[in-house]
């Protein structure tokens, strides 16, 4: 046995990847339901995706407050009773507010679904938004924000988005303690009426599904006055900052700085997007990337450095993000620019590109493991108004994109003078 010699491998690019198709139907009111039935554990995940993200709000914090308070009281149940109803059956009901969408999700054992759906129905269509619950929410959200504002990385994340998109844009806007303080019940309720009760919604169900799922969903949600998403999103106009370079002092005791570099980038429908995902992996997308190899594994400036393209629907941004020792933040930025220059000037060697291709395909194979992961892929495709061809094209791109194409992309996008540059320390 020769331990110096690697065992033969099957090239990951030789794998044929299949995205298990979903089952699709609509409820009586036209609301679409997407289902993946798979998995051996008798559990499931159900997500109600409303078009109720912050891009629909008229003043800051309304969408997030409406989303959060859905669980804090109906005409027959207090917040405690709602929590108890889920907790008793070992279920989790969460809600999350994004930019376009706002989601309510349920995770439960399949055998308890029938008991829990009516509780979700009540939350979605009979929430009462008690004044006291809003006051508690304001106080606790405000305090959480105070703690977060002490963290350089949190502040950096908000600022860099505001430079790229502008602070009026739903992707660049952020709430201050004063915004939270100013929240009033009336606009929260009005938002709920318009975007939940009379809103548009799609359902995504995955896991071990009961045979009568469709009837149960129809009974609980098919009669409500919600409808199918129109596919038209409110137009948003980004207003990028003119100044590119920022150094912000946030915490005089900080021993590290939060470094963020960013450029605006188009959305998934742009022909460069999938190729850029490959280039991003070479650049800073995973542990074996150039940024990580140079700045962590060679220089030891940081515990971790990554680049990524933001997961937004309408527009996006390409970012580099790290926390580095205060005295090496500037050196880190310089190294990032050096890595950009290498990608612009030299072809990515075949060996390295082959590694990245294999790593990415292996990752997708692992990502298709289990019903929740499969549904996450589909949800992303559907919410971005793409189709399954997008999935297969992305795999072909990973397998076939050439070093020349990557160099061309690097020349188009990885130009330091176009990057917003921020250190918060």
């Amino acid at each position, binding site marked *: 046995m020769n331990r110096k010699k690697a065992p033969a491998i099957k090239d*990951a690019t030789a794998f044929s990847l299949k995205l298990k198709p979903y089952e699709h139907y609509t409820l009586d009111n036209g609301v679409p339901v997407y289902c993946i039935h798979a998995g051996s554990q008798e559990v499931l995940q159900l997500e109600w995706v409303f078009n109720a993200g912050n891009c629909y709000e008229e003043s800051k914090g309304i969408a997030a407050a409406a989303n959060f308070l859905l669980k804090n009281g109906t005409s027959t149940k207090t917040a405690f009773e709602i929590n108890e109803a889920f907790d008793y059956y070992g279920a989790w009901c969460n809600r999350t507010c994004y930019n376009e969408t706002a989601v309510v999700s349920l995770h439960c054992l399949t055998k308890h679904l029938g008991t829990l759906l009516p509780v979700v129905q009540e939350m979605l269509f009979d929430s009462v938004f008690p004044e006291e619950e809003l006051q508690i929410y304001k106080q606790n959200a405000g305090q959480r924000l105070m*703690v977060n504002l002490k*963290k350089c990385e949190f502040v950096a994340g908000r600022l860099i988005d505001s430079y790229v998109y502008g602070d009026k844009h739903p992707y660049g806007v952020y709430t201050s303690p004063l915004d939270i303080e100013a929240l009033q019940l009336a606009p929260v309720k009005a938002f709920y009426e318009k975007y939940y009760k009379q809103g548009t919604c799609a359902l995504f169900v995955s896991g071990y599904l009961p045979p009568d799922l469709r009837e149960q969903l129809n009974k609980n949600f098919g009669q409500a006055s919600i409808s199918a998403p129109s596919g038209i999103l409110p137009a948003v106009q980004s207003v990028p900052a003119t100044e590119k370079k920022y150094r912000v002092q946030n915490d005089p005791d*900080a021993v590290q700085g939060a470094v963020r570099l960013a450029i605006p980038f188009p959305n998934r429908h742009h022909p460069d997007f999938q190729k850029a995902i490959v280039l991003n992996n070479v650049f800073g997308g995973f542990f*074996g990337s150039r940024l990580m190899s140079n700045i962590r594994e060679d220089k030891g400036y940081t515990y971790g450095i990554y680049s990524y393209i933001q997961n937004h629907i309408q527009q996006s941004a390409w970012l580099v993000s790290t926390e580095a020792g205060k005295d090496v933040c500037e050196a880190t930025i310089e190294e990032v620019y050096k890595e950009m220059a290498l990608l612009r000037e030299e072809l990515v060697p075949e060996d390295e590109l082959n590694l990245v291709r294999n790593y990415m*395909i*292996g990752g997708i194979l692992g990502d298709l*493991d289990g019903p929740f992961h499969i549904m996450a892929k589909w949800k992303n495709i559907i919410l971005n108004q793409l189709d399954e061809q997008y999935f297969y094209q992305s795999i072909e791109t990973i397998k076939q994109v050439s070093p020349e194409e990557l160099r061309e992309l690097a020349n188009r996008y990885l130009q330091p003078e176009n990057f917003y540059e921020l250190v918060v320390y």
Partner: protein
Amino acid sequence: MISFEKFTLSNGLRVLVHPDQSTPMAVVNVLYDVGARDENPEKTGFAHLFEHLMFGGSVNIPVYDEPLQVAGGENNAYTTNDLTNYYCQLPAENLETAFWLESDRMLSLAFSKKSLDVQRKVVCEEFREHYINKPYGDVWHEFRRLAYSTHPYRWMTIGAKLEHIEQATLEDVKSFFFKHYTPCNAILVVAGNVELERVRELSEKWFGSIPAGEKYHRNLPVEPAQQAPRLLERKAQVPLDALYKGWHIYSRTDARYYTADLITDILGGGGSSRLFQSLVKEKKLFSNIECYHLGSTDPGLLTIEGKLVKGIDIKTADLAIEEELKKMMENGVTEQELQKVKNKTESAMAFEDMSLLNRASSIAMYELLGDANLMNTELQRYQAVSTEDILRESRIIFNPNNCNTLYYLAENESHT
């Protein structure tokens, strides 16, 4: 029910195989029976620093990550106070690549000076990022030292101080490796789209010839029973006062562990839990409060932590917690309340077992505790806990003499 097969190589390496043909992937999980509790008190943080060095090349293979990535795999590792666990996931066809990589680093490392120099810096940045540069980042550093007088749970996995990491030498690295990273101190779990016979063959081929090494016999100082309440006050540059309380509980293999675990859920598990409902929603003393324990192998701490609503006196908040505990110690819990946390446990286990990686690491973890099959009887142990058990154990655990309290106060408060 998670099924697995087990065999042991002649060098003492335990191998557990969990086939699951529904996935195209395989997981190779190697657990080493060494954690921060096994460190020299003058050289803390070493087990974790060492974990980083395991990626700096082994005796025959200059780099670990690249060949795995070429095979379409991903990997990571973590160190706790009790153990160090390495795992990789890759397409099942390329299983042998993981055997090749994992066996070579069990055989011997490259012990590169450059790797040590760089990883010392990386770990110091990790230390700064998570424990210095974050508000409340050093709480557990303080709290462990308060609650443990003797047992090595006194220090955090990252280490007691930066200097310990900065001073690590290549000699330390070598002796640690040969003491702990041996087949007889390791557990190998192979899961996913694999066959038992093939795993047996690959295990013999790649791990069979590694010298057994000496079995490490753990002989840690035992934490003496606490005799009196302890209170520590700290001031820090944080926006809000925070309160931490911890009580010594039982070891992971003690039958009473399950009762203690359910008590934490009754007090602090989610929106309908006692502390949240009473202290956040009704009395509005805390902006958030949690009750948990870390599931450590040796006796751990049942912990309540909360951030106070601005303007609330910390003693008032502390008393309100005591009052809730008193209710439990006097009246116990209702059958319905107990059933609720049991249901939650059942559900949490089912969700955890969705992931192949989780199943593989659970098998390794339970094998380390003595028997991998414990994972299949765990739920029964929870089901067997009665309201009487809760009443009895809450009276023992929440004895005031068993209590450690940390007031972590906002420094700027006094100036306003």
